[in-house]
């Protein structure tokens, strides 16, 4: 019995070798075989140690399922995944020792104070706040004035900072952030990404999922996820560079009739609202041709060439 305890203890302390994450043919099916929902249909990707990796996809793409598999909360239906060289099914205990997970929903104890929550998560990882204070200092300093306030009474941005502090307090090798910026205001979002960049500098591998395309540019590499399938993995620049068609931005005072008109042209592959412009993807022809076409239809509009962003690429990939 005593001997067994020692083995369990040593198993308990096992740490990850590195921050490498690899996912191979991961399939996740929910429900009974006859009415199954395919949340993930064969996902493959690798994340290098110390990388800031983004998983971009709309709601229901399978982001949370993927994160729950990688954090050993969910058993995949098929495929293999490794975090830091450990298998998520067999060596889950080692993974739990040294990954940080911040679920999409705030899930700290609302009836414990900020300081108590942090101390609690530090102790259950067999560490203390002071031991890893340097890692969370930047973030924790911002919520320090509220250290005696109950976590449930914090504002959204504060909750998020506390959750991040709690996920980091044991100095994880890999940090999983599931939609950390959903429901957070623009300023806090920017601050949050700034924090991630600093954490990356500490050598922590970060996997972050988000439904916001504009955040993709802040990652080193992104994976585009849609309906449980991977649409593409590349650097943000690489993804936008792969957009091989002409993209135009069009606007006038009557945006709705303009969009209808644009969609009716046969040379237009796709037209969709984008900020104060409509983005138009052309099958053939040039900027000039479209301008002439609009004039012929009796519609005055400003037409300029646009630089494709991640969202444009995503729309394009989704269609094909």
């Amino acid at each position: 019995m005593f001997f067994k305890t020692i083995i369990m203890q040593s198993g308990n302390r096992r740490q990850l070798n590195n921050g490498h994450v690899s996912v191979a043919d991961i399939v996740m099916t929910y429900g009974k075989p006859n009415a199954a929902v395919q949340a993930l249909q064969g996902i493959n990707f690798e994340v290098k140690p110390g990388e800031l990796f983004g998983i971009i996809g709309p709601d229901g793409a399978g982001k949370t399922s993927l994160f729950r598999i990688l954090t050993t909360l969910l058993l995949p239906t098929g495929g293999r995944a490794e975090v830091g060289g450990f298998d998520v099914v067999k060596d889950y205990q080692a993974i739990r020792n040294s990954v940080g997970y911040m679920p999409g929903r705030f899930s700290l104890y609302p009836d414990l104070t900020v300081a108590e929550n942090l101390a609690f998560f530090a102790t259950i990882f067999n560490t203390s706040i002071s031991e890893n204070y340097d890692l969370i200092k930047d973030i924790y300093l911002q919520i320090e004035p509220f250290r005696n306030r109950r976590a449930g009474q914090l504002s959204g941005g504060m909750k998020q900072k506390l959750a991040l502090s709690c996920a980091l307090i044991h100095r994880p090798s890999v940090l999983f952030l599931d939609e950390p910026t959903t429901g957070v205001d623009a300023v806090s979002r920017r601050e949050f990404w700034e924090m991630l960049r600093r954490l990356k500098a500490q050598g922590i591998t970060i996997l972050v999922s988000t439904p916001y395309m504009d955040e993709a540019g802040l990652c080193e590499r992104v994976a585009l996820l849609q309906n449980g399938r991977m649409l593409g993995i590349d650097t943000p620049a690489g993804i936008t560079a792969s957009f091989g068609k002409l993209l135009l931005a069009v606007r006038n005072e009557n945006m709705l009739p303009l969009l209808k008109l644009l969609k009716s042209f046969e040379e237009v592959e796709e037209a969709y609202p984008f900020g104060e412009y409509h983005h138009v993807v052309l099958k053939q022809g040039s900027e000039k041709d479209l301008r002439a076409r609009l004039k012929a239809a009796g519609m005055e509009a400003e037409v300029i060439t646009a630089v494709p962003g991640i969202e444009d690429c995503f729309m394009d990939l989704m269609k094909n």
Partner: protein
Amino acid sequence: MRTLRFLLQKEFRQIFRDPAILRIIFVMPVMQLVLLPMAADYEVKNIRLAVVDHDHSVYSQQLIRKISASGYFLLTRYAASYQEAMKAVESDAADLVLELPSSFEKDLVKEEEAPVFMAVNAINGVKASLGSAYLRSIVQDFNQQVRAEWLQLPRFNPEPVVQVTSSNWYNPLMNYRYFMVPGILVILITMIGSFLAALNIVREKEIGTIEQINVTPIRKYQFILGKLIPFWVLGLAILSIGLLIARIVYGIIPAGSLFTIYLFAAVYLLAVLGIGLLISSYTQTQQQAMLISFFLIMVFILLGGLYTSVDSMPQWARYLVKLNPVSYFIEVMRMVVLKGSGTGEIKGHLISILAFALFFNTWAVLSYRKRS
């Protein structure tokens, strides 16, 4: 061990910070223990009686006076006919009809016997059977009285009469509360032990904190012990408060040793905590857990021998009672508090409860998953 200590610290902090839980744990039991035994009473009183007296004689008046003086009956209607009295029963103004024939006095004196008629509203079975039994014994008593007045008794009683004298052991005054308070206390401990623990765990599921806990190296046994120990302690605290109330309010001082009670309670709480754990691993929301608890507590109370005697149940129901851990503790409480039974006498119960504790906890631990 260190992890467990911090889990416990967190758990107690949360419990003592939640005013609702404190109220449920400390105020409700006190209220229930003080109010319920006073209100819930086996004795049937206030039976409403309608009398149809066709005789209007001295004897009939005497009988009626004797009945209303007994304290069990309320003379609500003095009807002229049986039909009128039945109307009173139909409109729920009377539970019992007593009809005295017009020749009541004459027959009683001359024939030495007089028939009376009794009609009972048997919707409430207990009230009907007890009410008619009370009335019958009063009439019999009256009969004796009249016979004594009129008859020259022979020198020797022609028929041998067996007279029964009884003495009530363990509860000499047959105080109903001595019997009920220990039982209600058991129900309270059961509710705290199993259902509060279940709700507490399901709450962690509901607010998502269990997810966060599951990604940590906390082991299954640590998490489960961290949940069970606080409610085990609370259960024993409730038992102490309950015993104190029983002593102060009802003057019930256990005849047996407190050690026996606490020993049994300590094991019993393990069993009910196992039930709580089991409920929590099969439910996702506090609402579901609540409804299941509600259903279970009904079964526990009705098949636990708290209100109804187990010995008068049909055989199949008695087997079900054997599967109800609550019935064991109720019996043990009554044995120790009233009879003064010691550890030796409750050994069988203790072993059964130990088996329950092992069974429920094993099942619960096996069904609890840190991941899906």
